[in-house]
Structures are given as C-alpha cells and as structure tokens.
C-alpha cells in the first residue's frame, strides 16, 4: 500500500483522525489513573475490587512473562556455541543436512537437541518455500552509525568489533553518518577513524547530513536516510544487488559480538521472504554496565529482559534500537521516516504497511551491546535516563499513523490489524499506568477509606490479598535476579560474593524505578502527544570513564 508514513501534509479528515489517535493514548492513561483515584474516593468498594482483579491479572501476566523470559534466555544461552558459519555452509545442500539432522547424535544434550530441532525447522521451511538461496559469499553488510556528538572513544570500540568479527570485513561497508551541525572535532574524529579503518572494510564512508533540509525534522532518521542513499549509490556503482545487502542501523556505541554478522547472515539466508523482514538481536547494555549507577543498570537490564520476552512472540515483534533489515526493503519503502523520533519502531510499521502486512521481524539468537546512559554526575545521569526513556516512550507517536494506515488499508487482514493495534495501544497504556496502579493508586481505597468502607470485610481482606500477590511476585523477581546474574559480564574490578549480593539487592529498587523512570516518562510522552507538545530529538549523552 502506498502510504505516506508521516503526520505532515494531511487532508482535513486525516488530520482529524491523526489528532484523535494522538489524544487517545494519553487520554486513556489519564482516565485510568484519575478514574481509579476518584473511584477510590467515591466508590472505594468498587475501586478495591477492581484493584484486586487488576493485581491478579498482573501477577499471572508476570508469571507468563517470566516463563518466556526463561525460555528466551535459555535459547540465547544454548545458541552461544552454535557455529553459524557451518550452518550457513549446510544451506548449500539442504536435503543432505536434513537427513543428517534426522539422526541426532546420542551424545547430544537437551540444548543441542532443541537447537537442532529449530535448525531443522528453519531448513525445512526454507526448502518448502522453494526460494533461491543466496550464497554466503554474495552477502554484503551495510552498517550505518549515526553520529551527532559521540566522541571517538564511544564509536571506536564498535568499529573494532565490526572488523574483528568472524564475518569477512571486506564485505562490510561502514558509513559514519555525521550531522553537519556536529562540532568540528566530532567531524574530524569521524574522518580520522575512516582513514584509519577504511582498508579493513569494503569501504568506510563518512557522510555529512546537511542541517535544515525542507521536510525533515532534526531526527536520527533524516541523517540515516541521507547516509543510506549515498550507500545505495555505492552499491549500484559496484553492481551489488540490494537483495544481497543487509543494512544494520546501529547506535554509535553499538558493539557487536564476533558471531553477530554470521548469525544475522544465517537468519537472512534461511528466512523465506528474507527481504520482507527485519532481524532483531537482543540488545544488552554491557559496554559500561559496571560504571553506571545501580538504578540505570537495573532499568536497562529490564529493557533487555523485555526484548528477550518479546523475542518469543515473533508474530507481533516490532523492531527496537539497533537492528538489521534488507537494503532492498529499505529502498522500496523509502528509507527511514525523516520527521519522526522513534525511527527504530517506525521503520517496522512503515515496512509492514508498505508490504500490506507481509512484513515481519525475525528474532535472532545473538546480542549486541550498547552503553547505559551515563553522565558525569549521578543526578545528571538520572535526568538523562529519564529523557532517554521518555524518548523511547515517544514511540507512541507511531500509534496514530499506524491506526490511520490500518483504517485506510483494504489488504491487511482485520485480525492482524486488531492484534497489532491492540498490542501497540495496550503496551503504551500499561507502560504509563501499571507502575502507578501497582505502587501507589492500588493502596488508595484503604488509605482514603471513609467510615463506611472501613466497616466492610473488603477493607480488611483487600490489602491482605494484595500483599499475598506481591509476595508471589517476588518469585518473578527472583527469576529476574538469577537471570541478570547469568546475563551480566563479570565485573572486572570486583567479583566477590558481596558484589553479587549487592547486584541482587539492586533489584529492590524496582518499585521506585518503575514509577520515576518508566511510568512517569511514558505518561509524560503520551501527555505531550495528546497536547501536541512534541518532543525534540534529544541525543542521549553517553560517557565512558577511563
């Protein structure tokens, strides 16, 4: 479907629809929160009953999510030893590989058995699709790293990880997409890095995105789009088909693990309809994990956990942060939106709408690491983290555009539209309301109880039931603590038992973190969208000590 994925240049009807859907999430969140507060004052009995029903829903959903968190983590752990290059080689003769896989080795343990089952399923699906299988040697990677004010010490580890990976660097084109408005020293550093590393890659380009281009906002998508167009010219000149190019748009601090590109290439090769898919790794924030304050660490581990859970739901997975896709698709859909802040999720929706719902996100069993937001002082870090989470929550700006597209599209099946719309809407609403409901508003009926309510059985049983539910939630928390201890890299300076206990105890900050650094930024973003007070793109400040 041809659809302008933008909120600009709309006719009157579309503009009205756009505003309606812009107001809807914020209005719903505020209605829920204020509704509960007023209900607690006027009808505490009803409010207390609804709170119990909600708490029960929350605990069951928490358990449900914990199951998939554990499964997803297990998959990630099991695939750590996988030789992706060998698997790619095996795609040359699928029948032979499938017959080999049909007779599993007796020495295989459960992880290997499951890994092989998944492998076999992927190959079978590929075989049944009867699609041509691209050769590994033909696949090229384009890595675009937007730079605004990131210094050399932030960018260079990522560049190094690209050339030190197992995928041949001479088939990787690196583009540092620098903003024209960046300080001269940032631009110079980019040029120096290019000069230093150019020889190791297919090429190393530095693009300079002009400021103030008509129709563009000062957002990352405008910069990366400009860079992608230049990269497109580069591939055209060298007769490299876009179908064979996988583009990865990485934050400047992204460090990939050595297997990343082979794992990505394998997924690309075995995915039928590979050009109509994005490839989502698990983002982890390990670059400076031991230098960041505890609240930022817990919050970003939480974000990784959320992606791990989402990875188990590929039917409704949406791209997030650093990810990859076919360059063919990127060109077909007209690149990233140049007037939106949440380009990472917007690119999925833009592709999904462009391909009439025949676009998906493939979770890949590998990680890439980024920096936790950090500043020179603890207080500034807090402010930066808040701003970063608000920017993430600004992803709600996609909701009105997606809804308009869904209403306009005759080809996307209704069931799919409903599922995606509900998930997008519910996700943002629960992000903005749950922390308040769980930590504060849920206790209001008891706290504000008038004489009439305090003389009911519910006044006494309500808090007791809530307390029991919260005790049960500690099982979920324990699961998170254990997985976080397993997922985190070792602390280079201290790794004693006390350090580990300290790390575990950091999770007790969850109630405060969820209110101030999750619920509040999300509510802030939704309120701004509803009031038409738009966010400016704010480049997350990243500091590395030492």
């Amino acid at each position, binding site marked *: 479907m041809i659809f302008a994925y933008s909120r600009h240049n709309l006719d009157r009807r579309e503009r009205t629809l756009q505003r309606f859907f812009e107001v809807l999430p914020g209005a719903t969140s505020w209605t829920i929160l204020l509704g509960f507060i007023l209900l607690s004052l006027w009808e505490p009995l009803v409010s207390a*009953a609804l709170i119990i029903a909600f708490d*029960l829903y929350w605990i*069951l959903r928490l358990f449900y999510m914990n199951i*998939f968190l554990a499964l997803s983590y297990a998959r990630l752990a099991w695939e750590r030893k996988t030789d992706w290059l060998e698997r790619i080689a095996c795609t040359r003769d699928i029948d032979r590989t499938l017959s080999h896989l049909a007779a599993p080795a*007796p020495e295989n343990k459960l992880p290997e*058995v*499951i890994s*092989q089952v998944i492998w*076999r399923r992927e190959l079978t699906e590929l075989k049944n699709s009867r699609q041509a299988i691209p050769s590994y040697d033909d696949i090229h990677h384009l890595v675009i790293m937007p730079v605004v004010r990131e210094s050399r010490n932030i960018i260079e580890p990522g560049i190094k990880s690209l050339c030190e990976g197992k995928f041949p660097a001479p088939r990787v084109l690196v583009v540092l997409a620098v903003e024209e408005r960046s300080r001269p020293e940032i631009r110079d550093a980019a040029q120096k890095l290019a000069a230093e590393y150019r020889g190791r890659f297919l090429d190393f380009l530095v693009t300079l995105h002009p400021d103030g281009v008509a129709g563009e906002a000062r957002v990352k998508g405008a910069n990366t789009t400009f860079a992608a167009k230049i990269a497109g010219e580069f591939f055209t000149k060298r007769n490299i088909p876009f179908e064979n190019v996988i583009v990865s748009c990485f934050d400047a601090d992204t460090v990939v693990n050595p297997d990343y590109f082979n794992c990505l290439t394998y997924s690309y090769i075995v995915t039928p309809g590979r050009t109509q898919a994005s490839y989502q790794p698990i983002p982890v924030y390990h670059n400076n994990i031991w230098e960041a304050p505890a609240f930022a660490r817990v919050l970003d581990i939480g974000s990784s956990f959320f992606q791990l859970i989402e990875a188990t739901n590929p039917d409704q997975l949406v791209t997030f942060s650093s990810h990859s896709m076919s360059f063919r698709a990127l060109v077909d859909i007209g690149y990233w939106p140049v007037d939106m802040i949440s380009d990472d999720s917007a690119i999925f929706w833009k592709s999904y709408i462009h391909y009439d719902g025949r676009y998906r996100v493939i979770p890949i069993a590998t990680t890439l690491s980024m920096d936790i937001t950090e500043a020179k002082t603890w207080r500034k870090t807090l402010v930066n983290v808040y701003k970063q989470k608000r920017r993430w929550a600004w992803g709600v700006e996609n909701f009105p555009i997606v809804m308009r597209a869904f209403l306009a599209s005759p080809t996307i099946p209704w069931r799919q539209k409903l599922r995606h719309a509900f998930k997008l809407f519910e996700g943002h609403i629960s992000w903005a309301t749950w922390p308040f409901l769980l930590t504060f508003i849920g206790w209001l009926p008891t706290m504000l109880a008038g004489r009439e309510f305090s003389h009911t*059985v519910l006044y006494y049983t309500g808090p007791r039931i809530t307390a029991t539910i919260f005790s049960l939630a500690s099982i979920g928390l324990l699961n998170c603590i254990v997985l976080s201890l397993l997922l985190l890299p070792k602390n280079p300076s201290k790794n004693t038992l006390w350090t580990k206990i300290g790390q575990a105890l950091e999770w007790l900050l969850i109630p405060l973190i969820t209110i101030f650094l999750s619920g509040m930024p999300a509510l802030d973003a939704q309120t701004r969208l509803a009031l038409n007070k738009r966010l400016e793109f704010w480049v997350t400040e990243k500091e590395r000590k030492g």
Partner: protein
Amino acid sequence: MRGKMIQNNVLEKIAGRLTLPGIRRAFFYFFLLLYLILCPIVLFYAFGFIIRPQEQKLVQTGLVSINTYPSGAYIYLGPSRYVQRSPAILSELLPGRYDLRVFLNQYRPWSNSFYVSAGKAVLFDRILLLPKALAPRTISRQSFINIIPLESASSCILARGHTFKDNYLFDGTEISTDPLASRIFLYADARLQDVATIQDNPLAVLTLVLQKEIKYLLLQPDKDSLMDISAIIIRPPEKFFLDPDDMSTVYSLHKDQIDMIKPQTGALYPGYVEHVRGFGAKGKKLYILSQEGILLRMNQDRTGPEILLSDASVSASIFDPKGIYEIYPLLPGTFVFLGDEGQLATNHLPHKIRDRGCRGIAFDGQQNRLLFWTKNEIDTIEFLRNAPDNDLFSNGSVIQRIFEEGRNIQQCLWIYEGSHILFRDANKVFLAELMPQGPPHIEFLVQVKNNTDIFYSEDTGTIYYLDAKIEGLQALNILPKNAPALVEPPTSEEGP
C-alpha cells in the same frame, strides 16, 4: 547408549512438535483460564463469601477487628477461645449476634455483645483495658485548691490559693517554680475571676479583679508569655471570643457590639461589628448572627460578606429572640450555636438540639462528632452530609445518648482519638468507651476533691486531679504515650 538415543528421539519428537507460537498460545490460554477461575474466587473471598460444607451453600460472612491496649489479651467469642491474642481480626463469622470477651491478667475483663452483618466489619479498635487496681501517682504533695485546665494547651493552672500569686502553670511534667504573677507582679494580690479559652487555640484571656478594678491578661502557655492587655480593653466585656486559627486577635463582646483587639500591636477597633446576636471567628473569617436573624460570613477586614442564612422563619425556629450566641464554625458547612442560657443549635437538622442547659461542647474533627453535656446528660452529634453543598441547613445529624444519670456533669472531653469520653460528674471521674453498636461502656476511675476540675494531657494519656482524700496533685495514667493509635491488621489468623 541405546537408552540415551531413545531418550533423545523422544525429546526430538516432543520438541519437533512444539513451536514457540504454539507454546505461547498454550500458556496464554492456560493463564487466561486460570484468571477466569481465580478472579471470581478471590473477589468472592475478598467480599467475605465462603462455602459452608455442611450446607453446600455460598454464604457471605463478616468479621470483627479487635485491638486492645495493652495488647496480648485473650479473646473469647461465645464459648470459644481464639488462639490469637489481641490485636486480631476474626474473619469468616456468619451473620448473627456474638458475645465478645477479652481478658488480660491484672486488668479488668471487658465484654460486649455485637451483631455481625454479611460483608461488614465490626471494629473494636481502641479497647482500653483498665488495671483491676488503678494506681495513681502523687505528683506533688503541695496543697492545691483547684485545677484550671487550659483548652488546646498541654498545660493547666494549679491554684494554691485565691489570689493570682497562688497560681502556677503545670505542663504535665513539672510545676513551674515561679507563680504566674511573677511575670506581672503588680497583680499578685488580684483574684482570678475567669479564664476564657477556645478549642484549638492555646491562648487564654484571664480576667482578674484587683481592688474592684478589672484587669485582663493574655496567656500563651506554649510560648511562656503573659501580656497585660487591660489598657486596650476600654469597656468591660461580657464575653471574649478567639479565632482558633489566629493567635494575634481577641474579640470582645459589649452589649451587641464586637470590639476587635490586636494585643501585639496594641490596636483596638471598638464597635468593629455592631448589632450582633451571635458571633464567632475561624480562619480569619467572622461569623455574625445579626439582630434580624441573618447569618453572615465575612473576611476579618469586613470585606466579602456572604449570607449563609436569610430565611427568617428558619432563623426564628433556631434562635431564641434574646441572648447572645457563640458561633462555632467546626467544618466547612457545619456550625454550632451555643446560647448564653445553654441553648444548643446547629445548621444540621433537627437544628435545635437543646432549649437550654447545655454546659459545654467539644468537637472531634476526625470523625465529625460533637460532644455536648448538660447537668445530667452527655450526648454526641454526628454530622451527616446528605444535602447539596449550597443547602447548608438541610443536612442531617445523628444524636446519640452517652450517659443520662449524671448528678452534676461539669467536664467532658474526647480522648484516645475520639474513641473514649472522659467526664467528671460532680466529684467522680468516669471513662466512657464508645461502642460500634449499643450503649457505651462506662467505668468509674477516681473521686476528686469537691468542686475541683481535672486536667487531661493527651500527650501523656494522664489525668491530673486533686484527690478527695489525699493531699496534693495526683496523676492517673490511663493511656500511655506508646499506646497504638490505629489497628495494624495482622497478617495471618487462626480459628478457635
């Protein structure tokens, strides 16, 4: 090896059939089903529903919450003793009447009969267990002739004689070494005639008579300040009025005029309000009942007048044509009018509470209740809000009789956050515990010297009095400072 191979084949087959979306779907429906089953069960439980196995019937139960001071008392409900000791919540009680008894060694037994309704909680949240033998302490062996309590100040005046130099301040811990008169020595031989105070304002206006001359002092015990304001009171007032929220102003009534006095600046505004039949002040707002029976509210600077009652027939049915009323604005929208012959009226129906004989009032702001007493009776009024906000005279009230066999009730006050009433009937001091259902429990505490007042310190939970037989100031601790203010619901409970 073969076994391992079979095991792996089985694993393969199971894993081969499972897909991630399939697993997700299975868990989703499982949790959905679990929620649909659990949610109504938990909600039914929360509302007190249980299944009675004998009858296979769903019944809604009630509960009783018991909190005693001191805690740890044995609880009997009917013939059964509960494993739990107080504080306790006894839940899953079938609707019906129950006899509750509470026992603690060395303390007087406590019992009450109550009715449990379905879905309702009966709260005995502030049961004060009194020792079998009360043990008053002697605070001072000096001889006193009276105690003069000061409202809202955690102090009282102890009088050793009839002249001003015989009066000492007592704050519940120590008696001041210097008499009050040491601050204004000129009035040492004056006679203390009257003390004007008001609830929620620590100020007291003392009226002294010195050789037929009347002197006025403003006492602020919490700031240890005593100020002579005689010079700015140009005519002998019939009554003083204080604003609970304004420490800088005193109002005095002279015939039908109100003078405003600013003691700190020495300013006097004679005839500040004229032709009044009633007056009160709160929150720097003046409440005036005019000679015509119109009730007005205005700012202290006389701006923004607002008519609260203009209906002459309603006014005539509430107020007597003669006399002056003190107006007490207790809450936004709730006023009490106390006439100089003890007429008591409110703006809540039935408006006129007592034609005469009301000796005093005390307000419990936490529970919107007013305590008032006459010579023989003590009652409470609970103010209801069941009329529109703009109709101030149509809200209702509930009047409850607390005590009716008094001989000469002189003092009454709320204690322990409004759960008890302490009162002095002639020379006997009683403690009345208000019950959620039925009449209050009344316990005799001590007998005091004839015609002497008592002083109760909420800070220490102690009554100070002059004993009928023993010389000196006595203290009886009925509610120690660490007594729990509220019930903490216990986390678990056991059956009988």
